[in-house]
């Protein structure tokens, strides 16, 4: 393992993703390098289809690269099998999705409890309640996702993502399905909670939204399968 990889919570080295479809081969990512350090917020911008979500999936160990290495919390993800990656994600990685992805059959509180219970956190219930309280949804803990508005669902998803105090949080277009006011509230929550959890979680944000990107420590643009820093 490289020294750099040891100090970065997430690192991609020479990362490539190539897919073959009926119309021939397509290179989505090629020779991409990236390091994300504890506590920093990194925004990844880019046009639709530029490969932002693919990169996010690879960094989080949700997909296999065609070339290169992916490191997450000091372990080489692309060498792990699916259960090894699941074990790594449990507790270390949080997710916030564009379409919220709450489990429809669980209440808000049970959704937040889920990752804590998966990792066997001893005071899971208390931490879930705290997280819901922090996103201002204590009163709606017993509601099911279908009974919540889009913004409320995303706040539950944020509480779920931060409750296990992850080392890194991946957010895929977290405001993409929300109106502007709600979106801003969500951005506040994402950034504030990162500070408050006290774990110095890194935040990797894939977004179209320049206002959201403005508030991050670093901004990178996806272009032709590579990342370019933005001023």
């Amino acid at each position: 393992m490289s020294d750099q990889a040891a100090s970065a919570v997430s690192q991609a080295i020479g990362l490539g993703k190539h897919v073959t479809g009926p119309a021939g081969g397509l290179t989505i990512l090629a020779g991409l390098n990236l390091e994300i350090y504890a506590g920093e917020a990194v925004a990844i911008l880019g046009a639709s289809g530029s490969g932002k979500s693919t990169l996010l999936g690879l960094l989080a160990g949700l997909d296999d690269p065609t070339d290169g290495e992916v490191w997450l919390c000091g372990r080489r993800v692309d060498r792990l099998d699916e259960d090894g990656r699941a074990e790594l994600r449990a507790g270390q990685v949080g997710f916030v999705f564009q379409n919220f992805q709450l489990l429809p059959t669980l209440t808000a509180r049970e959704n937040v409890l889920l990752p804590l219970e998966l990792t066997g956190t001893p005071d899971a219930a208390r931490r879930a309640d705290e997280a819901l309280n922090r996103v201002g949804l204590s009163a709606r803990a017993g509601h099911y996702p279908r009974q919540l508005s889009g913004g409320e669902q995303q706040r539950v998803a944020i509480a779920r993502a931060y409750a296990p105090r992850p080392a890194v949080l991946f957010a895929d277009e977290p405001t993409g399905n929300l109106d502007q006011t709600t979106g801003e509230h969500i951005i506040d929550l994402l950034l504030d909670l990162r500070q408050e959890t006290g774990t110095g979680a890194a935040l990797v944000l894939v977004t179209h939204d320049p206002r959201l990107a403005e508030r991050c420590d670093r901004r990178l643009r996806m272009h032709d399968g590579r990342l370019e820093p933005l001023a």
Partner: protein
Amino acid sequence: MNAWCLTLRLLRQDWRSGELYLLSAALVLTVAAITAVGFFTDRVEATLERQGSALIAADLALESSRPLDVRFADAAQARGLRTARTLEFRSVVMGERPQLVLMKAVDPDYPLRGRLRIGEALDAPDRPVESGPPAGEVWVESRLLRLLDLRIGDSLGVGESRLRIGAILTDEPDQGRSFFNIAPRVLMNRADLDATGLIGPASRVTHRLLIAGAATAIDAYRDWAGSRLAANVTLTDALEARPEFGSAVERASRFLHLATLVTLLVAGAAIALASQRLVERQTDAVAVMRCLGAPRHLLMRVLIGRLVLFGLGASLIGCLLGWLGQAGLLAALADWLGTDLPPASPAPVLVGLATGLITLLGFAVPPLIQLARVPPLRAIRRDLGTPRVSAALALGAAGLALALLILWQAQDLELGLKLLGGVLATLLALIGVVLLLVRLAGRLAGRARGVWRLGLAALTRRPGAAVLQIAGFGIGILALLLLAVVRVDLLESWRETVPEGAPNYFLINIQPHEVEPLRTFLNEAGIATPELHPMISGRLTRIGEHAVEPSDYDNPRAERLASREFNLSYGTEPQPDNRIVAGRWWSQGAEAAPQFSVESGIAETLGIALGDELTFWVSGHEVSGPVTSLREVRWDSFNVNFFVVASPALLRNEAATFITSFHLPAEREAVIAELARRFPSVTTLDVEAILGQVRQVIDRGVLAVEYVFLFTLGAGLLVMYAGIQASLEQRRSEHGILRTLGAGRRTLLSSLAVEFTAAGLLAGLLASVFAEATGWLLAEQIFELEFGFNPGLWAVGVLGSGLAIGLAGTLATYPLLIHPPLRALRGGNS
């Protein structure tokens, strides 16, 4: 985390969310049908056994023409069973003149089951008694008193003894129902037998050892004795004691098991469709759980654990419903079975639970295994879709579960294998033909316009889903059409095996000179001229070159047949209820050469083959001829039939009496009294009671089968509902897109109607073909009944199915058109 904890939580939540309702309805229905039939047959069999016990006066009876080895009685007593011995023989008793009687000497404990009934005077009402006559006394049938002009209290000469007539015997439980027991019966105490000197070493006596006691001890004894029986000893079980019901009860049981199996198959299809929908709805949730770090083995444990828990719960509810169902059925049949039924054993509950779990695991586990393999990436890329179930895995698991259940439930290897073969062939054919038709619809869609194009394209857009859906509809309609076929055609054929006008009187001992006067008498009485068949007694002495000796046969029935006289007949035409199964009937009528036609069952028992030369000893000389045909005889038709029929040339010169049977309505019984007066030597046998009982078994059996088919009806409707629901998820987003693009509600509604009606027509066409084929197969191969093709079924099947599914599908998916399209586009959560 604790997998059980997560399993329980998810199960609770799934239940609350309603995602399991369809699956549980299918499962509850299957288990309820299985357990209801299980409880019902269990209790009916126990009842028949009890009634059967009364008919042999015991739970088991050993019978032999020689004294029974004493170790049989010792072994029974050692097991705590009660025993009684009886000896039955023909003898002559002396009043003022001699009279042939059927004598039975019994132990004091006789009868062990059922009751004797006796009367104190000729016209006095009779009463039940617990045991037979005391020593020194006989009980006699009233006929004997009339024949010998005796009264109660008189003495009767029995061999070297004189015994007092103590009572009139009105009913004996094990009297038997042989038509030809025409000698009056006399019951005596076995203690008096030696003094009479009637029994010598060469006497023709039927020795019986009656045994009764606890069911488990009886079972153990049956096993013990069964392996030690000498060739001339038969063991009669209570259930075998009612041979005249055998065919009806067996058919009822086959129908019931068939109904259960059809329910199982149809509900299996509903379970498969519902599981597929569950997988579709849970794909996102599983992808998110994998993102959150749930390992695959945990998910697998949770998914399977949830399925098993759910299966157990639903199966228990099914068992409860099954119990209630059989209680309802038994209440409906109380007049036949009585209300005091033996309790059911707990076995059907275990069978129900096992069936529920096997069905669920067979049909739902393959989709769930795939579910655990959902890539976590699906959480951010919905275009990855739902996981594809491996066709080999899905078919393999479902096929295995079905094979296991069918062979187990059919309780009849032949029925089970035929059904299994039929089901697999039907499924493969169904899938093949649906694929073909879906492709055809695709071509039509290319040429069609507007809503027609949308509707037909919807069918072909997802060929896999369309095949599953149409196959589901097809199975549902097949079940409903089969109900029609079985209910209307098969059950009616069954009823007609004992038609309304079946003969209820037999006349025997008709002398040749009485034939014409009797025919005239019956004609004048308005009874359709029945055929009078000649009957000649003959003893089979040789088959080919081999002399027939009773001791040559190990089979007791063959031994009995070889030792007794056959009732032979002759004729120019076979009886209408006879079917030639080998060889040919003589076609030259009265001029035919000497030859025999033998009933196929007895031919097999005695080892008679087509072409064998048979020799009978008739009236002091030999009569021989070759066997030129074998016949199947429908004994339950109640017509006069013979095991062996000869061509007229062979027997027409022998001394014969005649026999006939006819139907006489109950209100015209006076004809019989007049007949007895005009033809005193003719013996009249009234079989109305037996006929009525057989008819009752059939009627109740039909009712029971129809009742069980209600479950099948439910399963058929459920599978169609599941078929409609199966595509709902995908339709939701498609309709969102189409409406956003400006498709009006009317357009979408019309396209839905086109799609579902087309699916309904295709399914109806297939179901009609398979229903007719299955009906024919069942009738001819399994139930041995006549089957007529039914064109009305096709019209109802195809048009009805198109209309019903078109309407139901459109109505069920209509709510998708009411909600704003944005909700559909955003996904199911909002």
